[in-house]
């Protein structure tokens, strides 16, 4: 009898598990940058053509990021784990196709100007 924890072929061929790794060609860390869940990304320059050597997922990110989007949003819209999006964003950042903005650190949370801006924004919703 086969043990229950022995991986089966079916398990390893599960597309939900495989897809993120195929998309990144097995990479789990971005080449550059940290990319927090709420780091913001914005596409810069014109959309590269088909000969630029980019994957469809790269192009989808560039299309999505014509307006600033966070790593979490890109992951949700592309239905891929946040870790996969970090790797792809790293590629685009390397090619200067996106600019990125890190979120505020805990230290910056003492800035009264930020609190005023957030309060004004919420009040005008």
């Amino acid at each position, binding site marked *: 009898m086969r043990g229950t924890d022995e991986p089966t072929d079916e398990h390893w061929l599960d597309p939900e598990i495989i897809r993120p790794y195929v998309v990144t060609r097995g990479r789990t860390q971005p080449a550059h940058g940290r990319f*927090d*869940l*709420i*780091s*913001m*990304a*914005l596409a*810069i*320059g*014109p959309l590269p053509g088909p000969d630029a050597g980019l994957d469809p997922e790269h192009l989808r990110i560039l299309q999505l990021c014509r307006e*600033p989007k*966070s790593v*979490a*949003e890109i*992951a*949700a*819209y592309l239905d891929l*784990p*946040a*870790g996969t999006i970090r790797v792809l964003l790293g590629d685009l950042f390397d090619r*200067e196709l996106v*600019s*990125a*903005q890190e*979120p*505020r*650190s*805990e230290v910056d*949370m*003492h*800035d*009264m100007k*930020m*609190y005023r*801006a*957030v*309060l*004004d*924004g*919420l*009040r005008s*919703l």
Partner: protein
Amino acid sequence: MVFARSERPRLPTAIKILVAGGFGAGKTTMVGAVSETRPLRTEEVLTDRGVGVDDLTSVEAKRTTTVAMDFGRITLGNDYVLYLFGTPGQERFWFVWDELAEGSLGAVILADTRRLADCFPSVDYFERRGTPFVVAVNCFEGSPSFEMDEVRLALQLNPAVPIIMCDARKRESSREVLISLVKHSARLRAEPVGS
């Protein structure tokens, strides 16, 4: 075409607020009520750095877990974007909270008066971590009504922690909760006592 750095449009800075509370307390409902889009879901693969495991004993000291989080977005002018993250409710995901809480403006703890005890772990967690938080009592129809003092007593809250009665389904009500959190966080962090 290459863009000069100065020509690049400025990116807004992202700020996050956590929405915590027991299962079914209305976290995703509140995120959806006040966000500009329907609640989105993201999956994060996180490393559990040996929680409750002696690192000397086994290779299992580092485990990875995939956690799904619901979140929403509120664009605040050109300079800021606010993200609301519903914290994963299960206790075994405590370590996830540390990554989420890092750099957050603060937390809303949603309390359901039918199961007030469900928010004890959240209160403990944010108190311990020093993250500013408010308690929002989600007033469901037919749920027992409590006075604010009773809730404060039951949760053993510091008198400075705001308690707000709310309806997490309503945009206006959820917005008031966020405003009260931002004011509270500003009082604690931007104008420290004694300065």
